[in-house]
């Protein structure tokens, strides 16, 4: 995974090693207004459908806009009261805690460890097995979200495959969807998301030169030691990146949970996206829902910053 030192535009770093790019006409390869024309459609789309809603959401979050009732007929500016209402709402904090549990179990630990484990096993296990298992793991990832949610709903349901298997080996049946729904949806997210980490780590591992391991082995380092003192430090950028990406993906998971549990029973699996949805559409409070969505974005941003600190010094800007 190569990263380059950032250099200002006017000072091409590689001019010494690489021939200067050929100049075309008087303008060289500088961007001019005329040459920027092809970029216009993309920027119109992004401005209208991405940037627009983001700017609008900052406005909405400070209003009482609603689908019905107060705030539906005419929208009023309400200052920070959406945010203070959220902080005073026990259901909001319940969702924050569940979101953290869901993200830590499924993304931070589950997908990352499982992905790393599979990437390491790919290097050693028998080829046919490797091919088959990676195909299965990738299939779980490539399947549409609704299908995945539905499959895991059947897997965890009281009459589902999980109980068929564990009662067959003599264990008592589990009712995870009712007793611990947040764990059920976390496992579902591990099932669905592991392939991503596996692909990232597998690509990163294959770029580690094998002679590094050989010299470590000659120095008497065992497999565990080689992993902790050679592999992990070399993979640090990949790990930090992957943690960030899986966290952001997991923070925004909606369909999987919505289909498996709908956030229930009794809000026990209502993560922030589901809470936001409920507030905005079941209760019609668009302004309040938007405020909570902004808080979700903030959590994502804070998490990303934390991971950036994990990056080695030379990779930081």
């Amino acid at each position, binding site marked *: 995974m190569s990263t*380059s030192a950032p250099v200002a535009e006017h000072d091409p770093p590689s001019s010494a090693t690489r021939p200067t790019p050929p100049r075309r006409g008087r303008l060289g390869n500088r961007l001019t207004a005329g040459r920027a024309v092809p970029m216009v459609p993309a920027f119109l789309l992004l401005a209208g459908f991405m940037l627009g809603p983001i700017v609008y*959401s900052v406005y909405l979050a400070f209003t009482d806009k609603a689908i019905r009732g107060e705030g539906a007929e005419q929208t009023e500016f309400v200052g920070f009261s959406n945010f203070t209402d959220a902080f005073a709402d026990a259901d909001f904090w319940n969702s924050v805690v569940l979101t953290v549990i869901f993200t830590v179990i499924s993304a931070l630990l589950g997908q990352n460890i499982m992905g790393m484990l599979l990437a390491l096993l790919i290097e050693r296990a028998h080829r046919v097995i490797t091919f088959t298992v990676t195909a299965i793991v990738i299939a779980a990832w490539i399947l*549409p979200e609704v299908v995945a949610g539905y499959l895991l709903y059947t897997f965890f349901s009281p009459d589902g495959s999980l109980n068929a298997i564990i009662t067959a080996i003599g264990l008592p049946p589990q009712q995870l969807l009712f007793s611990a729904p947040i764990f059920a949806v976390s496992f579902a997210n591990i099932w669905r998301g592991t392939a991503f980490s596996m692909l990232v780590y597998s690509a990163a591992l294959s770029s580690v030169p094998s002679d590094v391991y050989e010299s470590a082995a000659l120095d008497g380092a065992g497999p565990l030691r080689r992993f902790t003192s050679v592999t992990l430090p070399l993979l640090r950028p990949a790990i930090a990146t992957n943690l960030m990406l899986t966290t952001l993906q997991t923070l925004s998971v909606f369909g999987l949970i919505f289909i498996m549990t709908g956030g229930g029973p009794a809000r026990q699996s209502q993560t922030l996206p589901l809470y936001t949805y409920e507030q905005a559409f079941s209760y019609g409070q668009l302004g309040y829902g938007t405020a909570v969505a902004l808080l979700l974005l903030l959590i994502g941003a804070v998490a990303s910053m934390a991971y950036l600190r994990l990056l080695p010094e030379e990779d930081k800007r």
Partner: protein
Amino acid sequence: MTATPETTGTAPAPASDDPPPRPRRTGLGPRERSSTIASTVAMVVIGASFMVPLLWVVLASFNTEATLSISWPENWSLGNYAAIWNMETTFRPLLNSVILCGGAAAVTMVTAVLCAYPMSRYRFRAKRPLLLGIIFSTGLPITAIMIPVYALFVQVNLIDSMFGAILFLGASSLPYAIFLTKGFMDGVPVEIEESAWTEGAGVYRALWSVVLPLMRPGLAVAAIFTFVMMWGNFFVPFMLLLSPDKLPAAVTLYTFSSQYGQVAYGQLAAFSIFYSLPVVVLYLFLGRSLGQGFAAAGGVKG
């Protein structure tokens, strides 16, 4: 290739030349052989646990007496497929998915290619901030902006409009598509276009008949990836479309399961398979290159 710093570590195109395979050690010693066996066993266990839900859907789809639990069908039957083999249940939702995702993927790819070209070919001061902005917006959770999007769409009367849903879906996958496309385009040397220019071809002509053909594999990766992600998207059409005759398969599967879920597991399984088949087939076309696209994506962010 311009000598701007962000192009060096990011181009997926050079990365799509397969990295040299790890040299397989010859003459396995006893310790390494036992490590291979242990790894294989571990892999089989993990694979088996990942396999169960997938096996369930396949077996249940051929079992007219399917239950929620995995079981071998006593009488293999195509009855479930026959039961959903009609316009209302299966073909219209799938057709809607094709219109929605095909239209949105077309919008995304056309605008992404046009946008990537100047970014790949010319130098400008705002390039690095622009590219970083695009990369950051790839990580933006769509879930968090769906409420303002819904509220905006209500105001401009785009709710329940296929056209509106196509534009939003197209815009939301644009950042990653631009990022991928620019990377692949950087892999096409500028010199080739220059000879086209000396023969009098304009920029668009050169892009269309010189650059695009040369980056066809990369374009295919970006287009298929965009389409696959859209095909699986549930939340966007769930929010923006209302009429039953406009809903794509992602949403009808949800309504199907909440309406008939208690009785028709086998039919649901058959529908799930119909709906998943296109992305599985497309994925097979992508093969290894998808993973490398991700590795490259990791490279720039890391």
